[in-house]
């Protein structure tokens, strides 16, 4: 039995945050340091220490990867995924622990790293290739392949600053895709480019994987992780929460998105709210739920738990469902005023439920932002308002009698339709 191709043992990375964070990284000037030097004796004299917090971006992470495995790394923002890839790519140095990579490693943390806007496509292929670790000979021999893959042949001698963002990404990915490494580390690069090209990139990566290469792949798009990977590592707060078979980890991960709404009462409110009453919990359910994935062919039940400090009369509730996070596209707007419903809250706990018609939402993750207000008094301030109050996952919209399904990558909704040919 040969050794694992990647061996990670007790890998940790610590960042100092807190006081230092007042100054954006990289913009610290000599003056800031002087200020700090002056602060030092003050600290010593008064014993009043300026807050300096340690943040463990990675904490004691260990795992092994065998040759030929394709591993998806999933987790929320700030869970340590990117830091781990940076450490494995040797960009940042770990604080503790070690990792052994047995093979030629190529990492693609960003598409088009080192592309210079003034250089032509052709020139950038050479420079980018070199910086990714290809020799001149190698680039030369693969040049035609790279150009063919990128589909920008006719603009090869145009400076890339004149490229559309799509062309730019295509060329950049094409270079990276032809690296031919033993270990490929890819971070979120498919977030850009059009759907057809994304498909092509995914195909190319599958190709790499099927040749016995090892791939570490980070993506927010569960669908592309599912399409590519066989195993998954779920990162949370700098540690590995779960590792194993993709389906199992992915399901547990989707489910956990729903657990995040527990301490809604403690969440910071984004806008000035009167606080007479507070939304303390939101639960999204549907009939026929599997692994906590909502079935959008069934009515959506959104249950609001509200804690009122006193009796509050004449309240309307509203919520907006967005794709991904509150920053995403607005999918649905549900407002009790639309249905002429207002509520009288009694002091203490209230439960209000909103039931929709089948939403036919495409498979993916959605967020709910919600609030309460008095009708006609929008300008006076809301009673409560929470962004990203809850998230829920919808299972892929499976079309009856076919193998097709719809998820967020394809469309927002499924709409009943039929096709016919004129007789």
């Amino acid at each position: 039995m040969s050794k694992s191709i990647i061996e990670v043992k007790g890998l940790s990375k610590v960042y100092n945050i807190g006081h230092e964070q007042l100054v954006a990284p990289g913009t610290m000037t000599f003056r800031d340091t002087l200020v700090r030097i002056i602060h030092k004796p003050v600290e010593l004299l008064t014993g009043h220490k300026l807050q300096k917090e340690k943040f463990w971006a990675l904490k004691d992470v260990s795992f092994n990867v065998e040759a030929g495995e394709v591993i998806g790394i999933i987790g929320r923002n700030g869970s340590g995924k990117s830091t781990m890839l940076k450490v494995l790519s040797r960009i940042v140095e770990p604080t503790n622990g070690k990792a052994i990579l047995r093979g030629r490693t190529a990492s693609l943390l960003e598409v088009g790293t080192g592309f210079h806007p003034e250089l032509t496509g052709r020139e950038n292929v050479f420079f980018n290739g070199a910086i990714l670790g290809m020799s001149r000979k190698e680039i030369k021999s693969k040049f035609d392949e790279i150009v063919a893959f990128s589909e920008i042949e006719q603009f090869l001698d145009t400076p890339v600053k004149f490229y559309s963002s799509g062309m730019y990404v295509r060329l950049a990915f094409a270079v990276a895709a032809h690296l031919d490494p033993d270990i490929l580390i890819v971070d979120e690069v498919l977030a850009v480019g059009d759907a057809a090209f994304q498909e092509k990139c995914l195909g190319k990566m599958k190709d790499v994987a099927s040749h016995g290469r090892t791939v570490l792949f980070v993506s927010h798009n569960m669908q592309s992780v599912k399409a590519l990977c066989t195993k998954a590592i779920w990162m949370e707060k700098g540690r590995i929460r779960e590792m194993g078979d993709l389906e199992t980890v992915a399901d547990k991960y989707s489910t956990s998105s729903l657990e995040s709404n527990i301490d809604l009462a403690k969440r910071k409110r984004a806008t000035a709210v009167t606080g007479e009453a507070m939304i303390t919990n939101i639960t999204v359910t549907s009939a026929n739920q599997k692994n906590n994935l909502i079935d959008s062919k069934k009515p959506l039940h959104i249950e609001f738990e509200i804690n009122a400090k006193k009796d509050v009369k004449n309240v309307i509730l509203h919520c907006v469902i967005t794709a991904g996070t509150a920053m995403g596209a607005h999918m649905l707007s549900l407002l009790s005023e639309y249905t002429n419903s207002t509520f009288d809250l009694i002091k203490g706990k209230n439960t209000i439920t909103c039931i929709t018609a089948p939403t036919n939402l495409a498979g993916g993750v959605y967020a709910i932002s919600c609030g309460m207000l008095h009708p006609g008094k929008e300008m006076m301030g809301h009673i409560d308002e929470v962004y990203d109050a809850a998230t829920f996952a919808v299972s892929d919209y499976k079309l009856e009698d076919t193998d097709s399904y719809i998820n967020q990558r394809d469309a927002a909704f499924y709409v009943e339709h039929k096709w016919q040919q004129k007789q």
Partner: protein
Amino acid sequence: MQTEVIIKPRKRLAINWAELFEYRELFFYFAWRNVKVRYKQTAIGISWAVLQPLITMIVFTLFFNKAVGVQSGSQDVPYAIFSYVGLLFWNYFSQALTQAGNSLVDNQAIITKIYFPRIIPPLSSTIVSLIDFGFASIVFIGLLFYYNFVPSMLGLILVIPAIIMTFIAASGPGLFLAALNVKYRDVKQVLPFIVQTGLFLTPVIYPVSQVPQQYQWILYLNPMTGVINAMRSSFLGTAPINWPLTALSATVAIVTFVGGLYYFKGREKEFADII
């Protein structure tokens, strides 16, 4: 398994020569890119490399020589040639220093996304300046013909060591400033000032002989004094080379180079975190 990379916290300051050799192509790619980009979207392109020192020399000659009356220190050497030798090497030094000092910050995007030996950008930018040096030398040859001046053989032989010494003299502080620039962007502001002041602290427009004999060694603590004066002495045959003081300059250059290199290596690991 041909390649095995072990990632762990580094403790030593050792320089990984094997790795540098492996990345030798990237060294030239960086230089190549900088040269390519340098004169993009300019109307006269590479001619700037020739025009800049030429115009500076003319201004210096008119102003310092004709107006103020600074002499070359030798009857046989026209001031234009005298000052051009100084400018040639000073420009190489100052450009290499400036570009090396800014090289990491200019490549910020790459440094946070890709691994490669961090020493490549600063060192390769000193090579780019060498190309400008080459172009500026063409003007020098023209100047020699114009004044019908025949340089000495010894001078021609010493050109290569002089270039190497300039490279070392610029790389040391260049590496130091590049690393410092990652943390303190003040370096970017200070660099033009260093270059401007340095021009007057180095005998570029005036001969060393303007300084009293017993204080001349202070000037030689600046490695560029050693380079420029050795070149003038030999190439133009103004005076015999002052070997002890030139050796002092060389020692300072080497010591600062080693110092800069180790400062850089010591800071290297945090570049991606704080740049």
